[in-house]
């Protein structure tokens, strides 16, 4: 197949129309930038004291590249700003589970799967449409959130650093490569889980798979045990890419007309 088929575009368009009318999904999506891009950075940036001593930043020594020429306050800010990166990997993983659990299990519950599959649309296009309809807004929200975060952080720290501190290469790779891959992983995991359950809430539990590792990384960063490096992000992206391929194949098997209609509907 070259490019997107018209059917995929039709499905994506319809899914978007449904998403913007679903208050639950909209609230969930809007809460991410509010919490992670505004509330949390404001909280810690305002809480950083003016006088930060070398002892205060001892646990973070060696974790920030190029920290040699920085003041203790700058190092602390850099650590805190960097420690937020896992949240921007959490967003593209969690938001799709909210959308896709509705778009797949929802179809199942509302009895719309059979009429949809009765059309000449291919199952591959149905799956592609639903995947894109979940991935696009999730990645878009992540990027918009990051734009807000960057704006807020840079405006509050420019006086301290004299230059903008985000985004750096790690952030860019994480947002441009890892985030979409994670989003795809999340959607396909939802598809596989949705084929086994008939409850939207059960399908949404997929997000738990992502929350625990991401929070662990955040905590490890916050306590100075870990700092995400470019190599780690690239390696993570490769691993997620491989998992994505496996999940795409598994979901193609789960998302077959016969299976869907006799087991899902």
């Amino acid at each position: 197949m070259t490019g997107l088929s018209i059917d995929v575009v039709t499905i994506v368009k319809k899914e978007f129309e449904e998403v913007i009318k679903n208050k639950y999904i909209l609230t969930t999506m809007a809460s991410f930038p509010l919490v992670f891009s505004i509330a949390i950075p404001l909280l810690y940036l305002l809480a950083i004291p003016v006088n930060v001593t070398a002892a205060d930043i001892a646990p973070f020594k060696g974790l920030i590249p190029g920290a040699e020429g920085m003041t203790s306050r700058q190092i602390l800010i850099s650590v805190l700003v960097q420690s937020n990166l896992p949240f921007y990997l959490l967003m593209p993983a969690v938001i799709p589970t909210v959308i896709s659990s509705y778009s797949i299990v929802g179809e199942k519950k509302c009895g719309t799967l059979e009429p949809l599959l009765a059309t000449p649309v291919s199952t591959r296009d149905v799956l592609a449409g639903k995947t894109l309809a979940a991935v696009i807004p999730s990645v878009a929200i992540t990027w918009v959130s990051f734009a807000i975060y960057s704006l807020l952080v840079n405006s509050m720290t420019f006086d301290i650093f004299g230059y903008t501190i985000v985004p750096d290469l790690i952030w860019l790779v994480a947002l441009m490569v890892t985030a979409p891959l994670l989003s795809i992983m999340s959607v396909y995991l939802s598809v596989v889980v949705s084929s086994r359950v008939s409850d939207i809430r059960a399908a949404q539990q997929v997000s738990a798979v992502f929350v625990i590792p991401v929070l662990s990384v955040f905590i490890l960063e916050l306590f100075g045990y870990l700092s995400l490096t470019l190599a780690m992000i690239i390696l993570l992206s490769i691993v997620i890419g491989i998992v994505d391929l496996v999940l795409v194949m598994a979901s193609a098997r789960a998302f077959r007309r016969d299976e869907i209609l006799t087991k899902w509907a």
Partner: protein
Amino acid sequence: MIEARRLSRRFGDFSAVDSIDLEVGEGEVFGLLGPNGAGKTTTVRMLACLIRPTGGAAYVCGRSVYDPAAAREIRGMVGILTETSGFYDELSVYKNLRFYADLYKMDHQKAQQNIDYYLRLFDLWDVRNSRVAGFSKGMRQKLALTRCLVHEPRVVFMDEPTSGLDPESARIVRDSIRSLKAEGRTIFLCTHNLDEAERLCDRIAILDKRILSVDTPQRIKYSAYGRKVIVRLDCISDRIASIVHGMDHVRRVESRGNDLLIDVDDPDTDNPEIISAIVGAGGRIQYVGEQRHTLEDAYIKLVGDRVEH
């Protein structure tokens, strides 16, 4: 238009449809009757290329349901009114229908024209911009019919088309089925409404995993009960009964009060001779008629016999 040969579908050890043979012609209204769990929905799903058969062969519009490319073509040429009329509740009537019309690759103008036509026909025009959420079962059913017909399918599979409809709407639907037939479309109707099946269908199949009978509604009734002529006399004598019983084409005679119940093959041919024989034997005939059985009687007899065996 539809042909099935030894068509079967198993789900693991369970046989949902067992080796059925069907042939439905162009412009025919064909009814599929059967108790719950008889395999009607599975049959429709196989013929509409929603699920694959596990045995036999089937062709719709000359294409095999097994061939994946042909299956897509078949889905584009058939319309299906499913058992549950599910819609995207948050979207308007119009947007729901546009979505399906787009998936059927309809020309924008033609889609618009057909949507408008059916919305007016089924009295949904005033709610075309309303969300489907909150619609009554009847409104949903009419909307589902619109969805099923909007792309002008050559074959229409309908599962309980008048279910949940008020009498007026049900009549509109039945008239639409007749119009579709007049246009040369093939209608495959699954229903529990035997009166409706009798009124609409050219032929009927009674299914209970296997086909129990396929014929016109009239012939199904005759095959289940035979044809029985009732002759009411002012007085029945043994002589008259014996003369009638001795006639070649009379299979059985039963006296019930002043009525003679006579089993024959074809009353149109046999009645004149019977009447003449009774009159010749001195009988005074008050009334001659045919004992009527409904399709429901025949259906229950056929399905009941199957259960007993």
